[in-house]
Structures are given as C-alpha cells and as structure tokens.
C-alpha cells in the first residue's frame, strides 16, 4: 500500500510536469507562429521598440523555448529574478510570473481567488451529495411511483438547464425581488454570516445541476446493486430491509459516486466559470475568463496549472479512497 502511494505520487509529479510543459508550449510558442509577440502584449502596441526589446530581455522571451521553460519551472520552486531594460525585480517562490495586464505577480492573485472557488465548490458539493444521493436512493426504492417520476423529471430539467438560466432566475427572485440574500462575496474569516449569505444562492444553483446528475447516477446504481446476488444473501440471513439497503446496498452504490465526485470536485476547483460569472464571484473561473479576454498569458498559464493540479490530486485521492472502500483494489 505504501509503495503504491509513493508510486502514485511520483506519477502525479511527472504528470504535472508534462501538463506544465504542454501548456507552456502552447501559450508561449504559438504566439511566435501567429506573429503576436508576447512582449508586445505585455507593454502594449504603442510602445517603442526599445521598451519592447527591454521587456523581451527581462522576461527572457528571446531565449529558446526550453530555456524559458526551465526558467519558469525553476521560478516556481526557487523564485526568479527578472533583470533587463535597466530594472531588476525579484519574484519570490512560487513564482508564476507577472500578469501582462496588471503587472501583479500571478501567484498571490491566484491565492486570493482560490478560497472563493474552494468555498463555492465545497459548499455546493455538500449540498449536492446529500440532496442527489438521497433523492436517488428514494427514487430507486420507490421505482415507478409518482415520487420517483417527479424526482427524475426534476433531475432531467436540472441536467438540461444551464447555470446562467437557473442562476439568473434565482438571483432575480431571491436577491432582487425578495431581498433574502446578500450579493457580495465576503471572506469567511471576516464575516461568516456574510460569507454564507453571499454564497447560498451560488451553492444552491450549482448544487441543483450536480444533484440532478448524482440523483440519476445513484438511482441507476442502486437499482443495479439491488439485483445483485449478495443482496439476496443479505435478506436470506434475515437482515432487516433498512440494514440491507443502508449497509449492504449503500456500500456498493457509493463506489461509482465517489469516482465521479472526485473528478467533479477537481474540475470545479479549476473554476465554476459560469457560476462565478453569473454571481460575480471573484474566483479562479472568473480569473480565467478575464485572462482569456485580456490575452493575459501568464494568468492563463497559472489558472491552467492550478486546475490541472486540482484534477490530478482529486483523482489520486479518489483512487486512494477506492482502495479503502474496495478490498479487491487494496489487495491486488
């Protein structure tokens, strides 16, 4: 088991390096071919050639791509000094460079935004897992009933309605019309009540979408598990039905749900772009949208790396949890 974890961690590092290389390659090499000069992007089209040249030197944009890549990776671990054009700036580790637009360091910017995204994803996750799994289980156990059909219709609409629709409708009703919620995001440390009030609508909106998927998945899995031989064995032992469902069937039902949950959470950390935009939350997703609009290459690179890291780590956690749940994985 320990060797397995070590091996997996090693694989994570390799994978992150590969992702970094590819992303770096795309974002820094492609402008070369399309004729857009990153240095120009940085200082603006109106700048004089001398300034552009200075920036190019300072950012090392003239170096071969592999050298640039090495400097970038090195900067992440050891920090980096930018010297050129007569000025010198130190960017402490972990250094992801500076935004082309705001000239601010990328890492602190990302770290400012990460808690917002984590709050959004975490809170919504709790809601949708509870809601979705409960709905799915009840639907499965009451298959064909009015309750089942209502829940599954709601789930279908949940899956099909886009966030900006459900989000705007809920904003219109609860925020603007009923005035029940606050509109702004506040840090948890500053004001827990305000934090909750500002996030409750995005949570519910986001959770509705995911709960719908989870309800459908749970229902289908539960129905499949209920047909398993070992469920029949459990009943033949004389177990009460709640034990058969709650212990024997649930244990198996949770396995696929956990898999999906890990991947969903990983992806959400990369930014619930639509939700953050709809509710004007200053999270990573909003940063990604802004960065793309601004062609702010370093910021795009930073968000991409954080997202990939989140997905990869989430997958690792899921795999390890899998081993905890399923002895067949653990012992082989």
């Amino acid at each position, binding site marked *: 088991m320990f060797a397995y974890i070590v091996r997996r961690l090693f694989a994570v590092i390799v994978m992150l390096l590969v992702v970094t290389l590819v992303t770096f390659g795309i974002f820094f090499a492609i402008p070369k071919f399309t004729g857009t000069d990153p240095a120009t992007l940085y200082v603006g089209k109106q700048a004089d050639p001398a300034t552009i040249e200075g920036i190019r030197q300072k950012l090392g944009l003239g170096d071969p791509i592999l050298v640039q890549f090495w400097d970038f990776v090195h900067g992440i671990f050891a920090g980096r000094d930018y010297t050129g054009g007569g000025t010198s700036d130190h960017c402490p580790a972990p250094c992801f460079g500076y935004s082309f637009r705001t000239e601010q360091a990328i890492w602190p910017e990302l770290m400012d935004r990460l808690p917002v995204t984590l709050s959004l994803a975490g809170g919504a996750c709790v809601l949708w897992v509870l809601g979705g799994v409960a709905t799915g289980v009840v639907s*499965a*156990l*009451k*298959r*064909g*009933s009015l309750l*089942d059909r209502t829940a599954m219709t709601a789930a279908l609409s949940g899956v099909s309605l886009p966030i900006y629709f459900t989000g705007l409708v809920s904003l219109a009703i609860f925020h603007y019309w009923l005035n029940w919620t606050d509109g702004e995001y506040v840090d948890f440390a500053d004001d827990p009540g305000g934090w909750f009030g500002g996030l409750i609508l995005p949570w519910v909106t986001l959770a509705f979408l995911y709960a719908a998927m989870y309800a459908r998945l749970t229902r289908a899995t539960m*129905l499949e598990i*209920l047909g*398993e*031989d*070992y*469920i*029949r*064995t*459990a*009943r*033949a*032992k*004389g*177990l*009460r*039905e709640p034990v*058969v469902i709650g212990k*024997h069937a649930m*244990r*198996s039902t949770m396995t696929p749900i956990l898999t999906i949950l890990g991947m969903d959470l990983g992806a959400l950390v990369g930014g619930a772009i639509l939700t953050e935009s709809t509710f004007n939350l200053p999270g990573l997703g909003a940063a990604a949208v802004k960065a793309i609009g601004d062609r702010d290459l370093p910021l795009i690179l930073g968000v991409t790396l954080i997202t990939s890291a989140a997905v990869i780590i989430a997958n690792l956690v899921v795999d390890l949890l899998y081993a905890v*749940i*399923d*002895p*067949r994985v653990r*012992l082989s």
Partner: protein
Amino acid sequence: MTTASVPEDTPGPPATKSGAVGEPVGGDATTPTAYLDVRDLRIHFPTDDGLVKSVDGLSFRLEKGRTLGIVGESGSGKSVTSLGIMGLHTVGQYGRRKARISGEIWFNGKELMSADPDEVRRMRGREMAMIFQDPLSAMHPYFTVGAQIIEAYRVHHAVDKKTARKRAVELLDRVGIPQPDRRVDDYPHQFSGGMRQRAMIAMALVNNPELLIADEPTTALDVTVQAQILDLIRDLQQEFGSAVIIITHDLGVVAELADDILVMYGGRCVERGPAEQVFHAPQHPYTWGLLGSMPRIDREQTERLIPVKGSPPSLINVPSGCAFNPRCPYADVPKGGVTRTHRPELAPVAGEEGGRHHSACHLSQEERTRIWTEEIAPKL
C-alpha cells in the same frame, strides 16, 4: 389462444381453486403435518409479455433429517420455489410488479404465507437458511468473510462481536477452512471457489437452522471440489439433523445426496418419490428423458444418447394439458378418452410400498411400466 377455454389453467385468486383442486398432499389428511409442508404453491410473475407461471401448483412435504432433491432444467421453477419458501419474493421488490403467490407453506407448525412478514424475516437465517449457486457473487465483495458470518449470527443472537467472531471461526473450522482464525479476516475474493462455498455453508449453518436449502450448491465448482462439498453437506446434515432441500439440474448430485426426489417440469411436479424408485422405476416420460439424455460415467456406453426432442416450454404459454405433451414421445399413445388439453394430476404409483411414489401422467401405469422396462431401461 386455445388455452383460455381450459378451466384448469385459470390462475385465479386462491378462492377459485379450493383445496379439492390441489393434488392429494402426500397421503391423507390424517397424517400429522410434516416439518415442511408445501401445498399447492403458485408463484406467478406479471411481465409485459404476459403472466409467467414459474411455479404452478406445487405440493410436497419434507421431514426433519431427510434430504429432498428437486431436479429440473432451467426454467422449471425449482429456484423460484426455494426463494418462495424463504419468503424472498415479497421483500425488497421496490416497484417491481408484485409476484402473485398463493398456496400454503407450513413450516414447523406455522403457515408462512399468512404469517407476519417480520416474523418470517426472523425465521430466515435462523430456522431456515440458504446456500446459493455462485458463492463469489453471493457474498458481499466489500466485507470480510468473517464480518458476513458474524452479521448472520448477530441478527438472531444478542451477543457481542467477540462471541460472534468466536462462533464464526468455529464454523469456518467445522466446514474445513484451514487456519480459520486468520482466514476469518479475509475477503471473499481471497478465497478459492471451493473455500468460498465452504464459507457460504458456514454462514448458512451459523444459527443451526433446521431447514437448509441448497440451490445448485456445486454447479460453479470443479468436480473434485464438488465431491468435497457434497461430502461436507452430507456430514453436516447427519451432525445437525436438519431437513435439506437440494436443488440441481444434475441427476448425479441428487443421487448422491437425496432421500427423496421431486422432478419439476414447467412449474409443476411431474414425478416425486424415494430416490431409488425415481431412478430405478421412473414413472414419467420426462424423467425417462432426463435419464436417457445423460451420458453415464459408470457405464460403457456405445448406444447413442436418447435426447428429449424440442425445448423447454415457455412459462407464459404453458401447454394447457400436460406441459410435457409437445415433447413427449408417447403423446400419441391412446389414453382412454383423455384429451391433450386435460392436465394430469399427481397420483400415487400403485404397488410401491409406502405410497410415496407419485407421477403425473395420463399413460396407464401398466403402459408406463412396460415402456420403462422394455423400451427405455435396456438402452441406458
């Protein structure tokens, strides 16, 4: 559909078929009720294609300390019967269309069909236990073998985990698992097929049940392991003195274990009786077919096998008369005015001492005896 006009074939509510319609239940009414007494059991499943009559009027009885072998091919209703006795067609159906079940199941002086479901649940696993065909899929993959046995024990006994664990180890030891105190913490997939079936048997026996139902207990196993398991079941029965029902398609397995044999076809019993009688003087063309179809290891066989023509009947459109009629080589033998749509009832075979040998066939007994001794037996 010609079947609709036949009165015997209407599977109405229990009221429409009074006790008189059911076959004579193994002797007369004055005999004391047997340990297990199944009377006119009908289990029908509504489906989109029609009503599947998996079990359609089955009666038998079983005494403690005896083994009944229920033999039949797939779809004959033998497994459905066993789940019916355990009361497993009525729990956990969750929106599936309800099975239509009628008849009586007398077990240890109690009638189970009309009993409180929770009382039947408390009997499951404690007074009657079941062993399934495929022990890999019949055990939960995420719980240790020990945990599953302990659970089975603690449902019915208010003891702490430690005591239950001791009991589990003791049972694993009894069924021949080496190093039971270590293997108790293994998961089912760490056991070999034979070991898993042993563990399954340990789980079934943990509460000393008085009725043990084994549904194809060795079908998934290799022949040398099968021999071990059959041996174990026989030993355990002698030790515990329970009643055993063994359900199988393998006539060899039945011959090894069973005192009595019940042959099922199309959801009904076509022949039942003491094992020796059913094997050595069978009284139903289907039983002859089974015996003739089977290659024998104990005899040099130069003759061809004698297969039964055609395929098993659909349980939705069971032939209105004898279910075996379309496949029966003797369907055209005149039977004194009996028509094809007339269903033969189980009747005692005359001359058999004990009166336990029954067969449901329109052929006269003389005719059957003649066909068996002159046409079938010499070719086997």
